[in-house]
């Protein structure tokens, strides 16, 4: 789920930031340290700084985690590999001591979370949870705001679960049972009609980053706020191509979204 305050709506309406119909991508993880008011043995706060999804910060109770970063402008917090939804937890997100959202998110599921807000310069980000839960990944940074919307024909990541099935039937035709095994959330994200200069300045650094680390993607925030993924990029380089129309370029990414526990 992606959350944003009304002030961001105003900025988008004024053209200060691209329309919220356009994708928001968070590939920066600028925090360098993390501490918390509570930690369970083996699950320290520092685990949220790692991009993997099999280690967590587990406070075991209501607690606050504080991430510190070199003072700079940021506009997004990404949270993945969490169970805030299934734990019924409400999270309060603050940057530099100031809440960045109008309402504290109480997620209804464990899908990745993005909170985007008007850019602010800060050196601390805090996430306060009001109950026991676990959080695996936290990114803090500036989003890549796409200046064009994503392709219209795309599979919403929230529907993209791929599962393998084994169905048992006996010789006499009796149904014996079914076993399923989750695979992942594969989907394709693509953009076109991007000016070449803009592509070099903004897209290329992003594509270099995804060679080594996952990223957060909200494909169409205002239309589909649930469509948020924590994505592992493909096992090959993504290369933007000229469209042959003016100086426009296009690219697409074969993505694998992290499937949350309750998928």
């Amino acid at each position, binding site marked *: 789920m992606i959350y944003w305050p009304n002030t961001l709506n105003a900025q988008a309406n004024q053209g200060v930031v691209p329309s919220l119909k356009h994708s928001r991508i968070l590939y920066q993880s600028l925090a360098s340290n993390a501490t918390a008011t509570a930690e369970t043995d*083996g699950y320290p706060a520092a685990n949220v700084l790692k991009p993997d999804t099999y*280690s967590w910060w587990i406070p075991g109770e209501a607690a606050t985690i504080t991430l510190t970063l070199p003072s700079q402008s940021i506009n997004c917090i990404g949270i993945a590999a969490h169970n805030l939804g299934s734990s019924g937890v409400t999270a309060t997100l603050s940057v530099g001591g100031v809440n960045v959202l109008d309402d504290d998110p109480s997620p209804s599921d464990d899908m990745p979370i993005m909170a985007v807000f008007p850019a602010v310069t800060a050196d601390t980000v805090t996430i306060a949870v009001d109950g026991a839960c676990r959080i695996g990944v936290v990114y803090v940074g500036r989003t890549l705001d796409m200046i064009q919307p994503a392709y219209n024909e795309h599979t919403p990541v929230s529907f993209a679960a791929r599962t393998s099935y084994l169905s048992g039937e*006996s010789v006499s035709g009796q149904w014996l*049972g*079914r*076993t399923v*095994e989750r695979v*992942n959330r594969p989907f394709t994200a693509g953009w076109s009609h991007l000016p070449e200069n803009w592509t070099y300045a903004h897209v290329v650094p992003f594509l270099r980053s995804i060679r080594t680390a996952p990223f957060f993607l909200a494909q169409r925030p205002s239309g589909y706020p649930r469509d948020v993924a924590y994505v592992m990029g493909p096992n090959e380089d993504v290369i933007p191509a000229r469209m042959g129309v003016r100086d426009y370029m296009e690219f697409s990414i074969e993505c694998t979204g992290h*499937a949350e*526990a309750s998928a």
Partner: protein
Amino acid sequence: MTFTRERIQLLEIVQPRCDLRYGVSPCTASGGPNCYNCIGTCQDLANFASNGEIRWRFCKPNAHIEPYYSASVDGNTIATDWIPILSSVSTSASKINISGARKGESPFGVTASLSAGFIDVPWDDRVGDYYRGTRPAIDPDDKPTFWQLFVARNPYVGDMRAIVYDGYVGQTMAEMTRREYVLTAITSNDGQSASLDGVDPLQSLGDDDAYFPRTTPIQLYGDINSTTTSVQVYCVNPDDLSDVFGNTARKYIRINDEIIGYSSATETAPGTGIYTLSGVVRDALESTADSHSDETAMQRVGHYARTMFYNIEHDLIANHSRVDASYVPFADWQAVGDEELAYYQIEGTVHEPTKVGDLIGEIVQQCEHYIFWNERAREIQMAAIKPVVAPDGSITENDIMNTGQTLDHDPDSIYTRVFLYYRRNSPTGNLDGLANFSRMTGFIDGDAAQELGTRQELSIFSRWIRTSTQALLSAASITLRYSRVQRYMNLSIHVKDDWVEPSDVISVDTKLMRTSEGVRDVRNWQVIQREDKEPQFRIDLKLQEFAYRGRYGNWMADDSPDYVDATDAERAEGCFWADNDGLIDGEEGYRWQ
């Protein structure tokens, strides 16, 4: 049972860890780099104390992951979270060789095995490194991977176990089915992937380091004649003279064809390596005393005085092999032996180093039982070879999965006559020669030979069997089981029938089996292999027809009716005396089992 469930598979490596700290007494290591509390990095092996362990846990990359880390207060016992780098798990189940009679297979049948594949990822030693804060910084552009580090720190994995967990999302690990293996190798492949191999514990009984008795380099010191009782020997390792090989207080040592008994050995002077044997008995164990020359090679002899067969097997496994004795449910073994095979008190002499697996294989073949590794129970189980009156359960075509069934025949493993040679003339004589045995008992199934038009013979040369009754029962057991063409059935069942276990006897109703009149023939089959082909979904069974020539029953209570008044069920399960012609009311009489 829920109709649809999401399955999950994990693999756990149990690695022993030292519970000492680097350079802290009694550890005398110094100079660094600090160890990783594993034997591969230990710099003070004499003090390595494997009282701790770390359980490395792995799951498939897309598995439903839950937190599972745990650590003891002292940090010596650790279990990691599931690391999602397991790419594949392939297992092959053990296959039982009933009576050790199937040709081309060891008496233990086919041992189970495990192969697992992993992807490899950069690893930051986030778990289990006490000295992580003191390590030098790693170049971020040249990070070592998990398996590169694991292999570098653990060149030897024979002391580790692998456990495969199969279960469903929502279950705890304790609720999941577990299959256990002993590791044989872990290979790191260029930082991209790794592989792991494991086998069941019975495999190690055939290893080169599992001999009974082990080779003992001992020499006679000084000439002796046939009556000399003052005997001295030269021996480098005093354990070769003092270690126990068998179950007697008296120890034995062979020189040429003679076996000498002794009670103890004392070094004449410290550091000389010359020992004087005390309590010397010449021509021990029915050998012949002779003269022997100085420097003649000598070899410790293993000897078991009369005892139940399971005591010998247990001693061989627990004290003369690398198999973890905790895998042996000895109380269960005793129950099988005492209740069903009480007449097999045996004794034997092992005059030269012999593989433990071979010795146990002799005993299982000759004492009407078999042992096998049950990877789910994580036990070396024992079962008696005997007819059963009622099967352990039944399956029909409502249970057999539509993945294909096959029926095979093995015409090679037929025995219409079995001869057992026993009572060796010389305890140091060869086991494969008629000339070295003074007794022989055989069992012949003439009807089978006539029916098959052939005589198939098996000769067994036994160092263990002592009585004609034992020999007859042993020979009869094999003959009655194998005197007809062995049939094997392969089929699959759903995990809902998870109750089926190796060695179970089950009734199978399938259209594959027909009588001569074309009617379905519902028969008993013994499960000799159970393979979790698709864990938590499909189980492949290999069944051996459970056919004994004859009619068998159980001893009945005192107030049971006579045959003429018995119900069909009582006649099927009970046992009644036959007439002098071997018939009972004109029908086939019962065989004593």
